[in-house]
Protein backbone atom coordinates (compact mmCIF):
# COMPACT_ATOMS: atom_id res chain seq x y z
CA UNK A 1 0.00 0.00 0.00
CA UNK A 2 1.17 3.45 -0.90
CA UNK A 3 0.13 6.77 0.64
CA UNK A 4 -0.40 9.92 -1.35
CA UNK A 5 -0.71 13.32 0.28
CA UNK A 6 -2.65 15.67 -1.91
CA UNK A 7 -2.51 19.43 -1.40
CA UNK A 8 -2.68 19.35 2.37
CA UNK A 9 -3.35 22.60 4.22
CA UNK A 10 -4.02 22.77 7.90
CA UNK A 11 -4.44 25.50 10.48
CA UNK A 12 -5.10 25.76 14.18
CA UNK A 13 -7.44 28.68 14.74
CA UNK A 14 -6.07 31.41 12.52
CA UNK A 15 -2.53 30.02 12.52
CA UNK A 16 -1.58 28.09 9.39
CA UNK A 17 0.52 25.09 10.36
CA UNK A 18 0.93 23.18 7.10
CA UNK A 19 0.76 24.57 3.63
CA UNK A 20 0.44 22.82 0.26
CA UNK A 21 1.97 19.50 1.18
CA UNK A 22 2.16 17.09 -1.76
CA UNK A 23 4.03 13.90 -1.05
CA UNK A 24 4.16 10.26 -2.02
CA UNK A 25 5.09 7.58 0.45
CA UNK A 26 6.05 4.57 -1.67
CA UNK A 27 5.52 1.06 -0.38
CA UNK A 28 8.53 -0.51 1.30
CA UNK A 29 10.40 2.75 1.84
CA UNK A 30 11.14 4.82 4.90
CA UNK A 31 10.37 8.50 4.42
CA UNK A 32 11.96 10.76 7.01
CA UNK A 33 10.50 14.16 7.80
CA UNK A 34 12.80 16.78 9.28
CA UNK A 35 12.23 20.44 9.96
CA UNK A 36 12.59 23.09 12.62
CA UNK A 37 10.76 22.84 15.90
CA UNK A 38 7.04 23.65 15.66
CA UNK A 39 6.88 23.44 11.86
CA UNK A 40 4.04 20.93 11.94
CA UNK A 41 5.78 17.54 11.68
CA UNK A 42 3.69 15.91 14.41
CA UNK A 43 0.57 17.48 12.97
CA UNK A 44 1.38 16.05 9.55
CA UNK A 45 1.83 12.61 11.07
CA UNK A 46 -1.52 12.85 12.87
CA UNK A 47 -3.15 13.78 9.56
CA UNK A 48 -1.50 10.86 7.77
CA UNK A 49 -2.75 8.37 10.37
CA UNK A 50 -6.28 9.73 10.48
CA UNK A 51 -6.13 11.05 14.05
CA UNK A 52 -6.98 14.49 12.69
CA UNK A 53 -8.68 15.75 9.52
CA UNK A 54 -6.84 18.18 7.24
CA UNK A 55 -8.62 21.47 6.54
CA UNK A 56 -7.87 21.10 2.86
CA UNK A 57 -6.54 18.28 0.74
CA UNK A 58 -6.56 14.60 1.50
CA UNK A 59 -4.41 11.67 2.44
CA UNK A 60 -5.11 8.86 0.02
CA UNK A 61 -4.41 5.17 0.36
CA UNK A 62 -3.36 3.81 -2.99
CA UNK A 63 -4.04 0.11 -3.27
CA UNK A 64 -5.50 -2.04 -0.54
CA UNK A 65 -3.50 -2.90 2.56
CA UNK A 66 -2.39 -6.53 2.83
CA UNK A 67 -5.34 -8.72 3.80
CA UNK A 68 -3.72 -9.88 7.03
CA UNK A 69 -3.05 -6.35 8.27
CA UNK A 70 -5.01 -5.67 11.47
CA UNK A 71 -4.24 -1.97 11.69
CA UNK A 72 -2.84 -0.61 8.42
CA UNK A 73 -1.68 2.76 9.82
CA UNK A 74 0.14 2.16 13.10
CA UNK A 75 1.93 4.67 15.31
CA UNK A 76 5.04 4.47 17.42
CA UNK A 77 5.05 7.37 19.85
CA UNK A 78 7.90 9.37 21.29
CA UNK A 79 6.71 8.76 24.86
CA UNK A 80 6.08 5.02 24.17
CA UNK A 81 2.40 5.22 25.29
CA UNK A 82 2.47 1.91 27.16
CA UNK A 83 -0.26 1.15 29.68
CA UNK A 84 1.59 1.13 33.02
CA UNK A 85 -0.86 -1.37 34.51
CA UNK A 86 -0.29 -3.99 31.84
CA UNK A 87 2.69 -6.26 31.43
CA UNK A 88 4.76 -6.30 28.26
CA UNK A 89 2.62 -9.11 26.84
CA UNK A 90 -0.55 -7.36 28.04
CA UNK A 91 0.39 -4.16 26.26
CA UNK A 92 0.85 -6.04 23.02
CA UNK A 93 -2.34 -8.01 23.46
CA UNK A 94 -4.24 -4.71 23.92
CA UNK A 95 -3.77 -4.03 20.23
CA UNK A 96 -5.03 -7.52 19.32
CA UNK A 97 -7.95 -8.08 21.69
CA UNK A 98 -10.56 -6.22 19.67
CA UNK A 99 -9.90 -8.39 16.63
CA UNK A 100 -11.26 -11.61 18.11
CA UNK A 101 -8.33 -13.76 17.05
CA UNK A 102 -8.69 -16.31 19.82
CA UNK A 103 -6.20 -17.00 22.56
CA UNK A 104 -3.91 -19.38 20.70
CA UNK A 105 -3.41 -17.05 17.76
CA UNK A 106 -2.95 -13.99 20.00
CA UNK A 107 -0.32 -15.79 22.06
CA UNK A 108 1.47 -16.91 18.93
CA UNK A 109 1.62 -13.34 17.58
CA UNK A 110 2.86 -12.00 20.93
CA UNK A 111 5.59 -14.61 21.16
CA UNK A 112 6.64 -13.92 17.59
CA UNK A 113 6.97 -10.14 17.96
CA UNK A 114 8.68 -10.47 21.33
CA UNK A 115 11.24 -12.75 19.75
CA UNK A 116 11.75 -10.34 16.85
CA UNK A 117 12.39 -7.45 19.24
CA UNK A 118 14.49 -9.61 21.60
CA UNK A 119 12.07 -9.14 24.48
CA UNK A 120 11.05 -12.74 25.13
CA UNK A 121 12.58 -12.71 28.62
CA UNK A 122 10.54 -9.67 29.67
CA UNK A 123 7.09 -10.94 28.73
CA UNK A 124 5.62 -10.51 32.21
CA UNK A 125 7.52 -7.36 33.25
CA UNK A 126 5.65 -4.13 33.95
CA UNK A 127 6.66 -0.98 32.03
CA UNK A 128 8.07 0.68 35.15
CA UNK A 129 10.60 -2.12 35.42
CA UNK A 130 11.97 -1.42 31.93
CA UNK A 131 14.54 1.07 30.69
CA UNK A 132 13.55 3.66 28.10
CA UNK A 133 15.07 1.67 25.27
CA UNK A 134 13.20 -1.47 26.28
CA UNK A 135 9.94 0.43 26.57
CA UNK A 136 10.35 1.65 23.02
CA UNK A 137 11.12 -1.89 21.87
CA UNK A 138 7.84 -2.98 23.50
CA UNK A 139 6.08 -0.23 21.58
CA UNK A 140 7.76 -1.42 18.38
CA UNK A 141 6.71 -5.00 19.15
CA UNK A 142 3.13 -3.82 19.72
CA UNK A 143 3.19 -2.01 16.38
CA UNK A 144 4.56 -5.06 14.56
CA UNK A 145 1.91 -7.27 16.18
CA UNK A 146 -0.89 -5.66 14.17
CA UNK A 147 1.05 -6.16 10.91
CA UNK A 148 0.89 -2.53 9.79
CA UNK A 149 1.02 -1.52 6.17
CA UNK A 150 2.62 1.80 7.16
CA UNK A 151 4.45 2.61 10.40
CA UNK A 152 4.10 6.19 11.58
CA UNK A 153 6.86 7.15 13.96
CA UNK A 154 7.03 10.50 15.75
CA UNK A 155 10.53 10.99 17.10
CA UNK A 156 10.56 7.42 18.40
CA UNK A 157 14.14 7.63 19.63
CA UNK A 158 14.19 11.20 20.98
CA UNK A 159 13.52 10.22 24.58
CA UNK A 160 16.49 7.84 24.61
CA UNK A 161 20.18 8.31 25.27
CA UNK A 162 22.52 8.22 22.30
CA UNK A 163 23.87 4.70 22.87
CA UNK A 164 20.37 3.24 23.16
CA UNK A 165 19.36 5.23 20.13
CA UNK A 166 22.22 3.71 18.15
CA UNK A 167 21.17 0.18 19.20
CA UNK A 168 17.54 0.77 18.34
CA UNK A 169 18.46 2.21 14.96
CA UNK A 170 20.32 -1.04 14.29
CA UNK A 171 17.22 -2.94 15.40
CA UNK A 172 15.00 -0.95 13.05
CA UNK A 173 17.41 -1.47 10.16
CA UNK A 174 17.52 -5.18 11.01
CA UNK A 175 13.73 -5.43 11.06
CA UNK A 176 13.45 -3.54 7.78
CA UNK A 177 16.11 -5.67 6.10
CA UNK A 178 14.29 -8.87 7.02
CA UNK A 179 10.88 -7.65 5.90
CA UNK A 180 10.87 -4.20 4.30
CA UNK A 181 8.09 -2.05 5.74
CA UNK A 182 6.72 1.32 4.77
CA UNK A 183 7.29 4.07 7.29
CA UNK A 184 7.03 7.78 7.89
CA UNK A 185 9.68 8.73 10.39
CA UNK A 186 9.58 12.18 11.98
CA UNK A 187 12.80 13.26 13.65
CA UNK A 188 14.85 16.21 14.83
CA UNK A 189 17.98 14.23 14.47
CA UNK A 190 19.62 14.51 11.05
CA UNK A 191 21.84 11.54 11.79
CA UNK A 192 18.78 9.33 12.29
CA UNK A 193 17.35 10.73 9.08
CA UNK A 194 20.37 9.81 6.96
CA UNK A 195 20.69 6.41 8.62
CA UNK A 196 17.06 5.36 8.15
CA UNK A 197 15.59 7.42 5.32
CA UNK A 198 15.27 6.39 1.71
CA UNK A 199 13.76 9.81 1.20
CA UNK A 200 14.22 12.77 3.52
CA UNK A 201 11.59 15.49 3.36
CA UNK A 202 12.78 18.89 4.60
CA UNK A 203 10.00 21.15 5.86
CA UNK A 204 10.32 24.92 6.19
CA UNK A 205 9.48 26.66 9.41
CA UNK A 206 5.81 27.23 10.23
CA UNK A 207 3.68 27.14 8.19
CA UNK A 208 5.45 23.97 7.13
CA UNK A 209 5.86 23.50 3.39
CA UNK A 210 8.14 21.08 1.59
CA UNK A 211 11.46 22.77 0.88
CA UNK A 212 13.26 19.83 -0.56
CA UNK A 213 13.19 16.08 -0.81
CA UNK A 214 16.61 14.45 -0.51
CA UNK A 215 16.98 10.84 -1.66
CA UNK A 216 19.68 8.50 -0.44
CA UNK A 217 20.32 5.37 -2.49
CA UNK A 218 22.74 3.58 -0.18
CA UNK A 219 21.15 0.37 1.23
CA UNK A 220 20.09 0.79 4.85
CA UNK A 221 22.11 -2.18 6.06
CA UNK A 222 25.36 -0.64 4.79
CA UNK A 223 24.87 2.80 6.26
CA UNK A 224 26.21 2.10 9.74
CA UNK A 225 29.60 1.24 8.23
CA UNK A 226 29.68 4.01 5.66
CA UNK A 227 28.81 7.01 7.84
CA UNK A 228 31.63 8.97 6.20
CA UNK A 229 29.78 9.02 2.89
CA UNK A 230 26.59 10.06 4.65
CA UNK A 231 28.23 13.06 6.27
CA UNK A 232 27.87 15.16 3.11
CA UNK A 233 24.14 14.39 2.95
CA UNK A 234 23.79 15.33 6.59
CA UNK A 235 25.71 18.55 5.91
CA UNK A 236 23.40 19.32 2.99
CA UNK A 237 20.33 18.81 5.18
CA UNK A 238 21.77 20.96 7.93
CA UNK A 239 22.49 23.84 5.56
CA UNK A 240 18.88 23.59 4.36
CA UNK A 241 17.36 23.99 7.78
CA UNK A 242 19.96 25.93 9.76
CA UNK A 243 18.61 29.42 9.13
CA UNK A 244 15.02 28.26 9.48
CA UNK A 245 15.78 26.50 12.73
CA UNK A 246 17.44 29.60 14.15
CA UNK A 247 14.48 31.76 13.15
CA UNK A 248 11.92 29.23 14.44
CA UNK A 249 13.74 29.09 17.74
CA UNK A 250 13.21 32.82 18.24
CA UNK A 251 9.46 32.68 17.56
CA UNK A 252 6.88 33.02 20.27
CA UNK A 253 4.86 29.83 20.54
CA UNK A 254 1.44 31.33 19.84
CA UNK A 255 2.49 34.47 17.99
Amino acid sequence: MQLILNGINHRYGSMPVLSDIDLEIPAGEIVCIVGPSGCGKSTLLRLIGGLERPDEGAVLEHGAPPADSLNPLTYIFQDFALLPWRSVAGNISLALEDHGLGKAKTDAIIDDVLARTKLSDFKTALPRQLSGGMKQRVAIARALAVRPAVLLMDEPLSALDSQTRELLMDDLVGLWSKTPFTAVYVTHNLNEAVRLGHKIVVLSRRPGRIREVVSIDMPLAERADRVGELASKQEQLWSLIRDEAAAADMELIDA
Partner: protein
Amino acid sequence: MPENPTSQPVPFRGGGFNPRPRALIGLAVMVVLIAVWETGCRTGIIHPLVLPAPSEAATAFMELVDSGLLWTHLGASLSRLVIGWTAGTILGITVGFAIGLFSLARAGMVPLVAAIFPIPKIALLPLFIIWFGIGEGSKVATILFGTFFPTVVATYGGVDNVDRGLIRMGQSFGLSWVSIVRKIILPGALPAILPGFRISAAIAIVLLVAAEMIGAEFGVGAYILMAGSLMAMDQLIAGVAILSTIGLTVSWIIGRAEKALLRWRV
Protein backbone atom coordinates in the same frame (compact mmCIF):
# COMPACT_ATOMS: atom_id res chain seq x y z
CA MET B 1 43.96 21.30 43.49
CA PRO B 2 45.03 23.56 46.35
CA GLU B 3 45.92 21.86 49.61
CA ASN B 4 43.02 22.23 52.04
CA PRO B 5 44.02 21.71 55.65
CA THR B 6 40.44 21.44 56.92
CA SER B 7 38.83 19.01 54.51
CA GLN B 8 35.42 17.77 55.60
CA PRO B 9 32.59 15.76 54.06
CA VAL B 10 29.97 17.58 52.04
CA PRO B 11 27.00 18.31 54.32
CA PHE B 12 24.10 15.91 53.65
CA ARG B 13 20.96 17.70 52.54
CA GLY B 14 18.90 14.92 50.98
CA GLY B 15 16.52 12.43 52.56
CA GLY B 16 13.12 12.94 54.18
CA PHE B 17 9.77 13.58 52.47
CA ASN B 18 9.22 9.86 52.13
CA PRO B 19 7.07 8.43 54.93
CA ARG B 20 7.38 4.65 55.10
CA PRO B 21 4.94 2.24 56.69
CA ARG B 22 5.83 1.31 60.27
CA ALA B 23 3.33 -1.34 61.29
CA LEU B 24 3.75 -1.31 65.04
CA ILE B 25 3.89 2.44 65.72
CA GLY B 26 0.15 2.99 65.25
CA LEU B 27 -0.64 0.15 67.63
CA ALA B 28 1.86 1.44 70.18
CA VAL B 29 0.34 4.94 70.12
CA MET B 30 -3.11 3.45 70.86
CA VAL B 31 -1.85 1.19 73.63
CA VAL B 32 0.01 4.06 75.32
CA LEU B 33 -3.01 6.35 75.05
CA ILE B 34 -5.37 3.77 76.56
CA ALA B 35 -2.84 2.97 79.31
CA VAL B 36 -2.55 6.67 80.23
CA TRP B 37 -6.34 7.01 80.23
CA GLU B 38 -6.81 3.91 82.39
CA THR B 39 -4.19 5.07 84.92
CA GLY B 40 -5.79 8.51 84.97
CA CYS B 41 -9.15 6.96 85.89
CA ARG B 42 -7.72 4.53 88.49
CA THR B 43 -5.75 7.26 90.25
CA GLY B 44 -8.78 9.52 90.31
CA ILE B 45 -7.25 12.27 88.18
CA ILE B 46 -10.08 11.73 85.71
CA HIS B 47 -13.48 11.72 87.42
CA PRO B 48 -15.59 8.69 86.45
CA LEU B 49 -18.52 10.94 85.51
CA VAL B 50 -16.34 12.90 83.10
CA LEU B 51 -14.89 9.88 81.40
CA PRO B 52 -15.26 6.21 82.35
CA ALA B 53 -12.16 4.04 82.36
CA PRO B 54 -11.43 1.92 79.27
CA SER B 55 -11.87 -1.16 81.44
CA GLU B 56 -15.41 -0.08 82.31
CA ALA B 57 -16.18 0.47 78.65
CA ALA B 58 -14.78 -3.00 78.00
CA THR B 59 -17.10 -4.43 80.63
CA ALA B 60 -20.05 -2.66 79.05
CA PHE B 61 -18.97 -4.09 75.71
CA MET B 62 -18.83 -7.62 77.14
CA GLU B 63 -22.32 -7.17 78.56
CA LEU B 64 -23.46 -6.22 75.11
CA VAL B 65 -21.85 -9.33 73.67
CA ASP B 66 -23.38 -11.56 76.34
CA SER B 67 -26.84 -10.14 75.83
CA GLY B 68 -26.53 -11.14 72.19
CA LEU B 69 -27.53 -7.65 71.11
CA LEU B 70 -24.11 -6.80 69.67
CA TRP B 71 -24.80 -8.79 66.53
CA THR B 72 -28.28 -7.34 66.20
CA HIS B 73 -26.94 -3.79 66.38
CA LEU B 74 -23.90 -4.52 64.24
CA GLY B 75 -25.91 -6.45 61.67
CA ALA B 76 -28.44 -3.63 61.32
CA SER B 77 -25.71 -1.01 60.97
CA LEU B 78 -23.49 -2.94 58.60
CA SER B 79 -26.33 -3.86 56.25
CA ARG B 80 -27.38 -0.18 55.99
CA LEU B 81 -23.76 0.82 55.49
CA VAL B 82 -23.04 -1.78 52.84
CA ILE B 83 -26.26 -1.22 50.88
CA GLY B 84 -26.09 2.58 51.05
CA TRP B 85 -22.39 2.85 50.31
CA THR B 86 -22.43 0.30 47.48
CA ALA B 87 -25.41 1.87 45.76
CA GLY B 88 -23.99 5.39 46.21
CA THR B 89 -20.62 4.29 44.89
CA ILE B 90 -22.01 2.53 41.83
CA LEU B 91 -24.21 5.50 40.98
CA GLY B 92 -21.37 7.92 41.72
CA ILE B 93 -18.91 6.12 39.47
CA THR B 94 -21.48 5.92 36.70
CA VAL B 95 -22.32 9.60 36.85
CA GLY B 96 -18.63 10.49 37.31
CA PHE B 97 -17.79 8.61 34.11
CA ALA B 98 -20.64 10.27 32.27
CA ILE B 99 -19.33 13.68 33.33
CA GLY B 100 -15.80 12.69 32.35
CA LEU B 101 -16.81 11.37 28.93
CA PHE B 102 -19.77 13.39 27.63
CA SER B 103 -19.95 17.17 27.19
CA LEU B 104 -23.70 17.21 27.79
CA ALA B 105 -23.47 15.31 31.07
CA ARG B 106 -20.62 17.57 32.15
CA ALA B 107 -22.47 20.76 31.38
CA GLY B 108 -25.61 19.52 33.09
CA MET B 109 -24.25 17.73 36.13
CA VAL B 110 -21.20 19.65 37.32
CA PRO B 111 -23.12 22.72 38.57
CA LEU B 112 -25.71 20.43 40.14
CA VAL B 113 -23.02 18.48 41.99
CA ALA B 114 -21.37 21.70 43.13
CA ALA B 115 -24.73 22.93 44.43
CA ILE B 116 -25.72 19.78 46.33
CA PHE B 117 -22.36 18.42 47.51
CA PRO B 118 -21.90 21.00 50.32
CA ILE B 119 -25.37 20.46 51.81
CA PRO B 120 -25.06 18.38 55.00
CA LYS B 121 -27.10 15.33 54.11
CA ILE B 122 -28.29 15.11 57.72
CA ALA B 123 -30.23 18.30 57.10
CA LEU B 124 -32.14 16.40 54.42
CA LEU B 125 -32.95 13.44 56.67
CA PRO B 126 -36.46 14.68 57.62
CA LEU B 127 -37.16 15.06 53.91
CA PHE B 128 -35.91 11.52 53.26
CA ILE B 129 -38.12 10.25 56.07
CA ILE B 130 -41.13 11.74 54.33
CA TRP B 131 -40.03 10.35 50.98
CA PHE B 132 -38.74 6.93 51.95
CA GLY B 133 -40.40 6.27 55.31
CA ILE B 134 -39.00 6.16 58.81
CA GLY B 135 -37.65 2.63 58.30
CA GLU B 136 -34.63 1.44 56.36
CA GLY B 137 -35.37 3.54 53.27
CA SER B 138 -34.50 6.93 54.69
CA LYS B 139 -31.34 5.66 56.38
CA VAL B 140 -30.00 3.95 53.28
CA ALA B 141 -30.95 7.00 51.20
CA THR B 142 -28.98 9.31 53.48
CA ILE B 143 -25.88 7.15 53.21
CA LEU B 144 -26.35 6.70 49.49
CA PHE B 145 -26.61 10.45 48.99
CA GLY B 146 -23.62 11.16 51.19
CA THR B 147 -21.50 8.62 49.33
CA PHE B 148 -22.65 9.61 45.89
CA PHE B 149 -21.21 13.13 45.65
CA PRO B 150 -17.61 12.61 46.75
CA THR B 151 -17.50 9.56 44.46
CA VAL B 152 -18.72 11.60 41.49
CA VAL B 153 -16.12 14.27 42.10
CA ALA B 154 -13.27 11.79 42.59
CA THR B 155 -14.30 9.80 39.51
CA TYR B 156 -14.57 12.60 37.01
CA GLY B 157 -11.37 14.12 38.34
CA GLY B 158 -9.71 10.77 37.73
CA VAL B 159 -11.15 10.45 34.22
CA ASP B 160 -9.98 13.99 33.40
CA ASN B 161 -6.48 13.10 34.50
CA VAL B 162 -6.07 10.01 32.36
CA ASP B 163 -3.10 10.52 30.05
CA ARG B 164 -4.52 11.79 26.72
CA GLY B 165 -1.56 10.20 24.98
CA LEU B 166 -2.75 6.76 26.07
CA ILE B 167 -6.24 7.46 24.76
CA ARG B 168 -4.81 8.61 21.44
CA MET B 169 -2.72 5.44 21.37
CA GLY B 170 -5.90 3.39 21.85
CA GLN B 171 -7.58 5.22 18.99
CA SER B 172 -4.55 4.79 16.76
CA PHE B 173 -4.79 1.02 17.21
CA GLY B 174 -8.44 1.13 16.26
CA LEU B 175 -9.75 0.13 19.69
CA SER B 176 -13.51 0.38 20.09
CA TRP B 177 -14.97 3.09 22.31
CA VAL B 178 -15.94 0.50 24.91
CA SER B 179 -12.44 -0.95 24.92
CA ILE B 180 -10.87 2.47 25.39
CA VAL B 181 -13.17 3.21 28.33
CA ARG B 182 -12.75 -0.20 29.92
CA LYS B 183 -9.07 -0.87 29.30
CA ILE B 184 -7.54 2.62 29.33
CA ILE B 185 -9.79 5.14 31.08
CA LEU B 186 -11.11 2.95 33.91
CA PRO B 187 -7.73 1.66 35.10
CA GLY B 188 -6.22 5.10 34.51
CA ALA B 189 -8.84 6.73 36.74
CA LEU B 190 -8.55 4.12 39.48
CA PRO B 191 -5.71 5.86 41.36
CA ALA B 192 -8.11 8.79 41.90
CA ILE B 193 -11.25 6.70 42.54
CA LEU B 194 -9.86 4.44 45.27
CA PRO B 195 -8.72 7.21 47.65
CA GLY B 196 -12.19 8.68 47.11
CA PHE B 197 -13.52 5.47 48.68
CA ARG B 198 -11.78 6.34 51.94
CA ILE B 199 -13.54 9.67 52.11
CA SER B 200 -16.93 8.33 51.07
CA ALA B 201 -16.69 5.44 53.56
CA ALA B 202 -15.93 7.83 56.42
CA ILE B 203 -18.83 10.05 55.40
CA ALA B 204 -21.06 6.97 55.21
CA ILE B 205 -20.23 5.97 58.79
CA VAL B 206 -20.90 9.49 60.09
CA LEU B 207 -24.25 9.56 58.31
CA LEU B 208 -25.11 6.04 59.45
CA VAL B 209 -24.90 7.04 63.10
CA ALA B 210 -26.77 10.27 62.53
CA ALA B 211 -29.56 8.45 60.70
CA GLU B 212 -29.76 5.75 63.35
CA MET B 213 -30.17 8.35 66.03
CA ILE B 214 -33.51 9.22 64.52
CA GLY B 215 -36.05 6.47 64.83
CA ALA B 216 -34.05 3.29 64.75
CA GLU B 217 -34.62 0.39 67.08
CA PHE B 218 -31.33 -1.34 66.38
CA GLY B 219 -27.97 -0.16 65.15
CA VAL B 220 -24.77 1.14 66.69
CA GLY B 221 -26.11 4.70 66.45
CA ALA B 222 -29.30 3.72 68.32
CA TYR B 223 -27.22 1.99 70.97
CA ILE B 224 -25.06 5.11 71.47
CA LEU B 225 -28.13 7.35 71.60
CA MET B 226 -29.74 5.15 74.22
CA ALA B 227 -26.54 5.07 76.31
CA GLY B 228 -26.35 8.85 76.07
CA SER B 229 -29.88 9.43 77.24
CA LEU B 230 -29.31 7.06 80.19
CA MET B 231 -26.02 8.83 80.94
CA ALA B 232 -24.36 5.41 80.65
CA MET B 233 -20.97 6.73 79.61
CA ASP B 234 -19.33 3.30 79.64
CA GLN B 235 -21.80 2.05 77.04
CA LEU B 236 -21.36 5.22 75.03
CA ILE B 237 -17.60 4.72 74.88
CA ALA B 238 -18.12 1.06 73.95
CA GLY B 239 -20.41 2.14 71.10
CA VAL B 240 -17.90 4.70 69.87
CA ALA B 241 -15.18 2.04 69.97
CA ILE B 242 -17.33 -0.20 67.77
CA LEU B 243 -17.62 2.65 65.25
CA SER B 244 -13.86 3.17 65.30
CA THR B 245 -13.37 -0.53 64.68
CA ILE B 246 -15.73 -0.39 61.70
CA GLY B 247 -13.77 2.61 60.40
CA LEU B 248 -10.43 0.84 60.85
CA THR B 249 -11.69 -2.30 59.14
CA VAL B 250 -13.05 -0.37 56.18
CA SER B 251 -9.82 1.55 55.83
CA TRP B 252 -7.86 -1.70 55.97
CA ILE B 253 -10.02 -3.26 53.26
CA ILE B 254 -9.55 -0.23 51.03
CA GLY B 255 -5.82 -0.32 51.68
CA ARG B 256 -5.71 -3.94 50.56
CA ALA B 257 -7.74 -3.11 47.47
CA GLU B 258 -5.35 -0.28 46.62
CA LYS B 259 -2.37 -2.56 47.02
CA ALA B 260 -3.90 -5.20 44.79
CA LEU B 261 -5.30 -2.91 42.09
CA LEU B 262 -2.54 -0.28 41.95
CA ARG B 263 0.42 -2.63 42.12
CA TRP B 264 1.61 -1.23 38.80
CA ARG B 265 2.40 2.14 40.33
CA VAL B 266 5.89 2.80 41.62
